[in-house]
């Protein structure tokens, strides 16, 4: 018998601290598997951000820097300009990337910075106990929208993939989801493509990943997958939003 599924060397093996059923863990594995498959664990440099994944520098086997909240793209830019030959990626949540870090991600994309952003959108601030994120859905109850997000007061959810796709520096942007096996596989393909395009110097690449937060959504892990499908995907349609290697943009 042969191992058809084994734990990737792209991870250190340190047990992760995420809540039971939080799909951040799946995303980590996918990224790590792609690092292993591309044989870049030894040269890649990752940037952790501030969110529940603040300490994933302990989980990824490559060299890692922990960036200030929202600033991972700037940190990654610094890293990449020093090591243009290394694969450089950021791992960021929706609060990190779409709120405080808006300017940094927009400008990394506009510069066509040759980095890849793994953007985990769980429609909430997980780490700080469930406040509204820029991607929180209209009507969603959070600790800072106790009566549900009301567009008239708190504004509308931001679709980052769509927004960043308007920038010329963005080479590849795809939105994927963790809600079932097929989509998890699709996500891995997207990450592979993003990393590959990065190595080819195509420009800025990003994979937006719809992910669960059972704890702060107050939904059990399996139900949370359903919530992605039923509630999130209508607001955040999956697909490729930018692909310089394709004929045109979606």
């Amino acid at each position: 018998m042969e191992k058809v599924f084994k734990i990737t060397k792209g991870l250190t093996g340190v047990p992760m601290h995420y809540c039971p059923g939080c799909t951040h863990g799946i995303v980590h594995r996918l990224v790590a598997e792609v690092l292993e498959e591309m044989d870049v664990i030894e040269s890649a440099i990752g940037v952790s951000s501030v969110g529940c994944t603040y300490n994933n520098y302990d989980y990824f086997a490559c060299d890692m820097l922990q960036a200030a909240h929202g600033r991972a793209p700037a940190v990654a830019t610094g890293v990449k300009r020093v090591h243009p030959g290394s694969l450089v990626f950021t791992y960021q949540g929706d609060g990190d990337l779409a709120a405080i870090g808006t300017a940094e991600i927009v400008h990394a994309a506009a510069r066509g910075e040759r980095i890849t952003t793994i953007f985990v959108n769980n429609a909430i601030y997980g780490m700080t106990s469930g406040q509204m994120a820029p991607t929180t859905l209209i009507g969603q109850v959070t600790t800072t929208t106790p009566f549900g997000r009301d567009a008239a007061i708190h504004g509308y959810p931001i679709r980052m993939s769509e927004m960043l796709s308007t920038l010329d520096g963005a080479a590849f942007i795809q939105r994927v989801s963790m809600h079932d096996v097929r989509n998890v596989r699709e996500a891995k393909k997207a990450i592979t493509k993003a990393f590959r395009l990065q190595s080819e110097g195509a420009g800025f690449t990003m994979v937006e990943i719809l992910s669960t937060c059972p704890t702060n959504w107050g939904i059990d892990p399996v139900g949370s997958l359903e919530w992605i499908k039923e509630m999130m995907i209508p607001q955040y349609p999956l697909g490729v939003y930018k692909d310089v290697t394709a004929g045109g943009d979606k």
Partner: protein
Amino acid sequence: MSNRVLMKGNEAIAEAAVKAGCRHYFGYPITPQTEIAHYLAKRMKDVDGVFLQAESEVAAINMVYGAAGAGARVLTSSSSPGISLKQEGFSYIAGAEIPSVVVNVMRCGPGLGGILPAQGDYFQCVKGGGHGDYKNLVLAASGVQELFSLTMEAFDLADKYRILVVILADGTIGQMMEPVIIPEDTDMKIFDKPWAASGKKGGNVHHTIKSIYIDPVVLEGLNNRLQSKYREIEANEVRVETSALEDAEIVITAFGTCARIAKNVIKEAAREGIKVGLIRPITLWPFPVEIISETARKDSVKAFLDIELNAGQMVEDVRLAVNGKKEVLFHGRTGGMIPSQEEILDIVRRIAGGGF
């Protein structure tokens, strides 16, 4: 003397960085230090370096964090409001012990204020404008040649102690031109950076650059380590210029531009028979505590007069060093105003006459 060139302070900083082996600059424009960027936008091309205009000061300091954390010698520069925006970054850099060099060519505040010279960011850069306990190594030049040398040294100090070094200059120092002798060959030290997150390069050490420690015992450990590093720097790296201290009755303390003016005052005062000395801290941190407290103990010394382009900041460190042994008087100007030689001389005369 033939290899002297006439340079602006800002240009001297830029050229010195290149000479020190710095090949990465990240910054956001702001007066009165834009010449650093203009110079390097050209100069980095000659040396295959990277000049990148960041989208903001916040981005710039975080690019520094990344690039220096990945092992490079890196420079950023800004002026007062831009430096305020970098304070979170300063604290992160201190926590992660990333060697970095940051230039602050100060303008007058508070707020948008104005663009004329000031020294109102002493507290921010010396005491800690960011959160938590940390220190920046702060270098203050009072002339262009010195600015050049200190900038070069800044990179060594940063690497040696894994610390953020601030080159703190007021607008005058940045904008003025003076002759500079540019060293042909430099004996810059090459620092090994085994801690850097530069890709494991086939090795198997997993490098992480970070400032977070969940366990308070571990975080206190980091803090203790930082503090002992700071004590070491205090023991080894104090730089100070003194003049005419031997028999001074009045000792002026001043840095940067104010120290230049003070030198004129000392000459003039001497002509009038008033003995004035000068202590000019070159490192604002580590502060030259010892020489000041020694001087304070001298019977010949009547009083200290601290002169700054602010409402009284370094004077607190002078007072801490004097520790009650003598009176410490203060004279400051703000808003871009600069005290004239006459103005200070007048105060000196009054102190000498006992009437300040």
